[in-house]
């Protein structure tokens, strides 16, 4: 992909859902949107976040697939389940550390973000990252990102004890070198309820 990378910065997201609408236009799954757009806790905040497939080097979704139906292309893109093989068990849906795969009951098959393989495999940018107005999803070179943004890109995550390395980069502040998810982070969302999101509390200062 000519030095182009996929960069994710959740904090930029404005929740417009352009990515969700555009994902549906991708030829490998036209009419079905593969991206997730989380409205995190609307009563407390307007925060939203997109989740694309992070394309792990050693994808857990593939490891837990009983049908051996999830394959990675030589260029590191983890594809939707192979249609002849997928037996619709949802192991991947439940095991993916990023919560990416989607199970479609009507076709009894898992489908997932494949980085718009119809586009990226011929040098075009993925739909979501092309249209994303906030560029929370950006598909560009690492050099361009480093030139134009503060912070840096990481590819290493730890979920509990499990280390995961992804093809897609997460854009984080300079001091963050590995993204660690443990109980603290999972219970952390209580932090969103802090006063800085409550307009009434802001007015009382």
């Amino acid at each position: 992909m000519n030095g182009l990378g996929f960069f994710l910065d959740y904090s930029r997201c404005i929740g417009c859902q352009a990515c969700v609408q555009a994902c549906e236009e991708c030829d490998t799954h036209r009419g079905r949107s593969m991206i997730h757009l989380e409205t995190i806790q609307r009563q407390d905040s307007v925060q939203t976040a997109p989740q694309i497939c992070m394309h792990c080097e050693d994808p857990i979704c593939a490891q837990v697939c009983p049908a051996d139906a999830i394959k990675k292309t030589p260029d590191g893109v983890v594809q939707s389940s192979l249609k002849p093989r997928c037996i619709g068990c949802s192991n991947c849906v439940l095991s993916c550390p990023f919560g990416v795969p989607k199970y479609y009951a009507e076709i009894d098959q898992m489908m997932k973000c494949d980085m718009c393989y119809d586009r990226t495999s011929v040098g075009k940018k993925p739909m979501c990252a092309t249209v994303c107005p906030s560029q929370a999803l950006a598909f560009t070179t690492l050099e361009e990102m480093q030139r134009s943004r503060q912070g840096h890109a990481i590819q290493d995550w730890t979920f509990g004890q499990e280390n995961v390395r992804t093809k897609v980069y997460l854009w984080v502040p300079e001091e963050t070198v590995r993204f660690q998810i443990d109980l603290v982070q999972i219970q952390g969302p209580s932090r969103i309820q802090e006063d800085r999101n409550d307009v009434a509390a802001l007015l009382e200062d």
Partner: protein
Amino acid sequence: MAKIPIPIPALVDRFGPHLNTEPPGGWTTAGEPDRVVKTHCCFCGQQCGIQLKVKDNQVIGFEPWEDFPFNRGKLCPKGVKRYLQGAHPDRLMDPLERVDGEGFVPTTWDNALDRTASEIRRIQQQYGPDAFAMLSGASLTNEKAYLMGKFARVAVRSANIDYNGRLCMVSAAAASKKIFGVDRAANPWEDILHAKVILVAGANVAECAPITTHYLWEARERGAKIIVLDPRMTPVGRTADLYIPVRSGGDIGIFNGMLQVMIERGWIDRAFISGHTTGWEKVEETVRRYTPEFAAKIAGVPAEMIIKAAEMWGPAATSFLLHARGIEHHSKGVDNCMAAIQLVLATGRIGRAGCGYAMITGQGNGQGGREQGQKADQLPGARDIENPEHRAHIARVWGVEEPSIPRKGLSNYEIIHAIHEGKIKGLLSICCNPMISLPDSAYVRAALEKLEFYAVVDFFLSESARHADIVLPGSLMEEDEGTTTNVEGRVIHHKKAVDPPGNARVDWQIICDLARRLGSDKFEYRSPREIFDELRRASQGGVADYFGITWERIDREYGVSWPCPAPDHPGTPRLYQNGRFFHADGKAHFHPIEWRPAAEEPDAEYPIVLTTGRVVSHFLSGNQTRRIAGLMKQEPEPFCEIHPRLAGTLGVAEGDFVKVESRRGAVTVKARVVKTIRPDTVFIPYHWPSDRAANRCTIGALDPISKIPEYKICAVRVMKTARPVDALAMLSPAAGGVE
């Protein structure tokens, strides 16, 4: 007799809104398009570049246009799904005639146009030339906007034409004109990137101008601080460096308060002020009273916020102000804008890279639509209709006698008043949907029902068109060619992708045909390009000078910014670079601004502030976006945002139905209990019809200068209520029902 001919559910059944879920031919991935057309989005003022895929004379999809510099391929959800308007089951394919008790029946073009022309003449003969009015729109191309102005003055010869930009950009326009003598964003968007502090005043950028978000974030990456003023914490406000939850209508408190602190601390560019401006002394005298404590009371926020804003804005090396409807939709909208712009002027940070301001125009051709002479008080080139020289120039271009051009007419909402007063008896509207977009819907409906004759040009049967006697099926943007002028003042080129379906016609031909039937020979255009060429000549020498702009140049240069007086002139992306302003004295004019209350402030009977606005997946009156399944799925029905504290006192929980009632009307919508809004304010988006129309509650109070209605504040009471079960509530959400 512009009453609805049959009950609304029956009309909905036939004309929608229905949802288009799939492109023509379904979600197929077989085959390739016949061609890909580089054009622009039809929706908001940003006018993003987009490529439409065409197959068998139908738009079947889109492809981002990454070369277009403004948006580089980026699109909001509306832009992504806009192509689904094309092969839509609700599309009007034939002229329609209202038959009482039967609905709308197809008729021939000859009959429809003859009847419209004869009704225009009958009404004018019976009640005077100005008794027939026209309402036009700012989503029309420059060519069509120009044509509508000329049609009104030359063919119909009525003074009463105005447009729906009156509901949108006029406060910003008037403020800029009063201060700088010209009405345009001062800078290209590129300049946002170079600002060290950005003040976003009354603009929910994330939802109403999503592409601008990237400019804000890129500026932040370069170290810019962002200040956001909004009664609701918007997605941009959420991570802004300073978010000020200003009370709706309290903005002058913030602006004057900031200016007061800046004067105190010496963050004023006195050299610039004395060299390039007039009227500063009076401003200084006025704002002296606006101490942070005093200003904070007006603004309804802690004084420290105002001080902090001043500390960020005052000493900055470069700065940019972005403002939009939040400060403009007020009976003091012009004053709000002037107070904001004077923060820019007082620091002298204008006319250079990273320094300036812009109003974020809302409608597709919000900028161009207000320059081509479809405003009640303007002639093409943003010329003044009362100025003898301007009149003479336009009379020459049009080939008419100067005295035959009518004088200044009534503004949009004043036309509604005049219908009530019996002064206006007939109406032709194009590109607008007053039943949803004008305040106090009941009053608007009563006006439409009083009309003796109402003709509508539209591609879908809008809620207003249901009142029409004749409906003329017009064209979508992609079915015609022309130019618009984007939020930056950049003139861009919309290409034709497909033909109008069935017997629908392109709008400009409809208007020209009508003009001919009215006996005018000044509308013999063979293409929109000929209209544009006449527009260029008409605008020549005016403020908004398009003379040097050609379609070829636009295509070559990705748009050309006006003023562009000659073919070899590069265009003017950034105004005031030489420190000269557009007033005759070359200076910018300060105006002292005093805060005053809104037309209707909350009181004991109606204790809550209602403010209205948009959501990202819908555009204006929703006539287009409420027919697209993907966009409806995103936001199916309106809601009432309410702070848990207020909800608690009212006994309202998330998802409950609430009745929001003002002195004029009420809506019943679901409550969305969120901490991201001021506890004294509720918010309802306005894109939906009937009992879900926020504008049933809003007030028809106008700004005395700009005549913009006060959409952003009126007084309401809110109470929990049962799920509505009447016939209208049973309709689909797109038609005003509830889910």
